[in-house]
């Protein structure tokens, strides 16, 4: 009878522990991750920016150096031959310069020295060339990047001559040296640095960039963003700019870029996030691991605590269940040393008390039962004494009655001489009263025997038809004397009955006799039928009927509807009571239907095979 619980304490404890631990860890983890993310990003950006600035500075320095070298050749005034020698020397000293050209003040090419080709004075007119014009205007002019063979970036540096010979020296500078300048500024194992010229064309980059010079990187998101930001920067501001983007391998990267002074170049230093955020990812893993570990610990702690709490409580529940089932000898074993143990002890004490109370109760019940049994035995003995007394008394009563009736008959028969008719009449009244007294004595004896349980049925096979016919034979003279029609209807195929034929005859004789006795005119009808296992004998009369309130009472001892009537009709008032008891002893019932002024019908339902002596009153009277 245990209630099905929706959720046990066990689950609740474990759930609470795990939930609490996970909540704290999650909050902590999320905060820490957010901070770490920001810090990591800032640190990466800072490192990249520093590298990019350094690289930009190196490039600017290198270009300045090249300028200085070129300037050396432009200072002294010299003839063409002298200048050729100067140019040759310059080519030797500055490997980045591939070609030098002198233009006179009118824009005519005077001299050209190349690292690769045999020089020839072409006399080409450069009067309108931007290199000539810009140099004259600004003293030094650095031209835009151009590519030879599509992949080799070059710039022109044009410088106006000082001194009396007006003119311009133009140097074509191979920018491949940029690679060696930026490469050292790559960070980490997977980071790289590169320089972009105008429109995002790659001038140089460290190997890990994996892009040929001249590639157009203008489409990369970080390049787009930085280019836009540079355009927005106020003049002279060359601070680094940072942007998230993607590399050529489509990996996420974090980039920092710086503009190279005096050019429109940008130096990028980039690192894939996979590497840059490695510490962050490690932290992420660590926090995740920590959360899992803590969940495991919380579960463990929850389970242990729940065990400590729940196991004793379950022991309590089980123990109380046993008490409820009446096992008061059970003791709840809880040794937790806390309130639960105290509770268990209380329960145990309660059980012990209940045990005692029950024991006392059982003892009392036993004692009372014994007393009752003793009382019952005494009553039984008293009852037996009573019926023995009745039996003896009836014998004692009958003996003198026997003599009275015997003498009266001998007198009537004239054994002691002829009697006058008047005396014969009186003697016959003596006989009639004597026989009535005898009937009373017999009935009392029968009833007392039945009540004492001393009346045993003599069970044997009998014919119901025979019984009924005998009853009719005994009563038809009485019916005829009263002018009543006594009719019978007996089914043909009645089974052989099993019961006490004499007693059953007594029962039907009583019922039929009563019907005739109480009916003044009309008929008494007897119908006998049988179902598979029971006879049904109905005795119907056209007598005065029995009022509903009397229908049960008439089956009780010494009860007749009307005592004055009894005296008028004769009878002991015991007949129906005896009949009922006898029918019940056969396992049957007597039913009574009656209507005052119309008549009565007694129906006896009797098992074909008597079910043996039933306890008096076990079967009933149905009205």
């Amino acid at each position, binding site marked *: 009878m245990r209630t099905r619980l929706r959720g046990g304490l066990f689950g609740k404890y474990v759930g609470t522990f795990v939930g609490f631990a996970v909540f704290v860890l999650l909050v902590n983890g999320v905060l820490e991750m957010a901070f770490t993310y920001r810090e990591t990003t800032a640190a990466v950006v800072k490192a990249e920016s520093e590298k990019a600035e350094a690289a930009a500075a190196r490039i600017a320095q290198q270009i300045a150096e090249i300028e200085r070298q070129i300037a050396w050749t432009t200072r002294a005034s010299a003839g063409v031959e002298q200048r050729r020698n100067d140019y040759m020397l310059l080519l030797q000293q500055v490997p980045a310069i591939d070609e030098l050209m002198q233009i006179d003040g009118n824009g005519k090419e005077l001299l050209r020295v190349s690292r690769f080709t045999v020089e020839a004075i072409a006399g080409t007119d450069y009067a309108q060339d931007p290199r000539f014009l810009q140099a004259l205007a600004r003293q030094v002019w650095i031209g835009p990047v151009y590519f030879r063979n599509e992949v080799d970036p070059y710039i022109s540096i044009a410088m106006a001559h000082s001194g009396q010979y007006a003119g311009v020296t133009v140097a074509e500078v191979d920018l491949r040296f940029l690679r060696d300048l930026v490469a050292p500024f790559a960070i980490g194992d997977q980071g790289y640095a590169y320089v972009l010229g105008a429109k995002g064309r790659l001038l140089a980059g460290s190997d890990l960039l994996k892009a040929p010079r001249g590639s157009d990187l203008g489409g990369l998101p970080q390049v787009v963003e930085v280019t836009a930001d540079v355009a927005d920067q106020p003049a002279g501001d060359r601070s680094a700019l940072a942007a998230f983007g993607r590399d050529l391998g489509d990996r996420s990267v974090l980039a920092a870029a710086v503009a190279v002074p005096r050019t429109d170049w940008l130096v990028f230093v980039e690192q894939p996030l996979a590497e840059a955020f490695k510490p962050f990812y490690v932290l992420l893993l660590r926090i995740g691991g920590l959360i899992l570990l803590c969940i495991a610990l919380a579960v463990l702690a929850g389970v242990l605590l729940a065990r400590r709490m729940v196991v004793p409580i379950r022991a309590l529940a089980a123990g109380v269940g046993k008490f409820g089932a009446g096992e008061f000898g059970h003791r709840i074993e809880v040794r937790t040393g806390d309130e639960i143990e105290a509770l268990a002890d209380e329960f145990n004490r309660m059980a012990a008390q209940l045990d005692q109370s029950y024991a006392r109760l059982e003892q009392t019940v036993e004692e009372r039962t014994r007393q009752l049994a003793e009382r019952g035995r005494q009553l039984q003995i008293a009852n037996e004494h009573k019926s023995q007394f009745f039996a003896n008394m009836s*014998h004692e009563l009958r003996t003198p009655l026997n003599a009275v*009736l015997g003498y009266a008959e001998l007198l009537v028969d004239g054994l002691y001489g002829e009697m006058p008719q008047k005396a014969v009449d009186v003697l016959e009244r003596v006989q009639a009263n*004597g026989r009535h007294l005898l009937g009373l004595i017999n009935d009392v004896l029968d009833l007392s025997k039945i009540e004492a349980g001393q009346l045993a049925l003599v069970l044997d096979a009998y014919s119901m038809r025979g019984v009924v016919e005998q009853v009719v034979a005994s009563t038809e003279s009485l019916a005829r004397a009263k002018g009543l029609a006594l009719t019978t209807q007996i089914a043909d195929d009645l089974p052989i009955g099993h019961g006490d034929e004499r007693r059953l005859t007594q029962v039907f004789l009583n019922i039929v006799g009563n019907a005739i006795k109480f009916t003044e005119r009309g008929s008494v009808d007897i119908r006998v039928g049988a179902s598979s296992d029971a006879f049904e004998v109905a005795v119907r009369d056209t007598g005065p009927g029995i009022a509903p309130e009397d229908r049960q009472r008439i089956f009780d001892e010494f009860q007749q509807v009307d005592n004055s009537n009894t005296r008028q009709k004769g009878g002991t008032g015991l007949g129906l009571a005896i009949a009922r008891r006898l029918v019940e002893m056969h396992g049957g019932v007597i039913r009574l239907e009656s209507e005052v002024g119309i008549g009565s019908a007694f129906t006896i339902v009797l098992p074909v095979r008597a079910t043996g002596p039933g306890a008096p009153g076990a079967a009933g009277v149905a009205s």
Partner: protein
Amino acid sequence: MTHILVVEDTEDNRRILRDLLTHAGFTLTEAGDGERGVALALSEKPDLILMDMQLPIVDGYDAARRIKADPAMAKTPIVAVTSYALSGDEEKARAAGCDAYVAKPFSPRQLLATVKELLARETPAGPAKGIDRG
């Protein structure tokens, strides 16, 4: 004359039987208890015995059994007369060897009829002693 033994402890009943049976022409021997009844039965060898069942000293059932145990009396009818007119009494009496059963209070007329019937049944089987004596 036909000879009847009456074993009956009540004087009134004995007198009624005596008056009835002597009036009917029988000779009578009477006993007041079972023991004397057995002794008289075995010595006098009556033609019929009327035996009350409730008797002092030896009861009627026992007396009937003892009388029937004698081979000479085995055929002599015994009529049990008892006031215990209940089911079982008749069977008990017959088991003790009684040939007929009359419940008290008996009607003298009916008793006489029963006695005459039993004697008539007996007559062809053996010599009519009563006639010898009568």
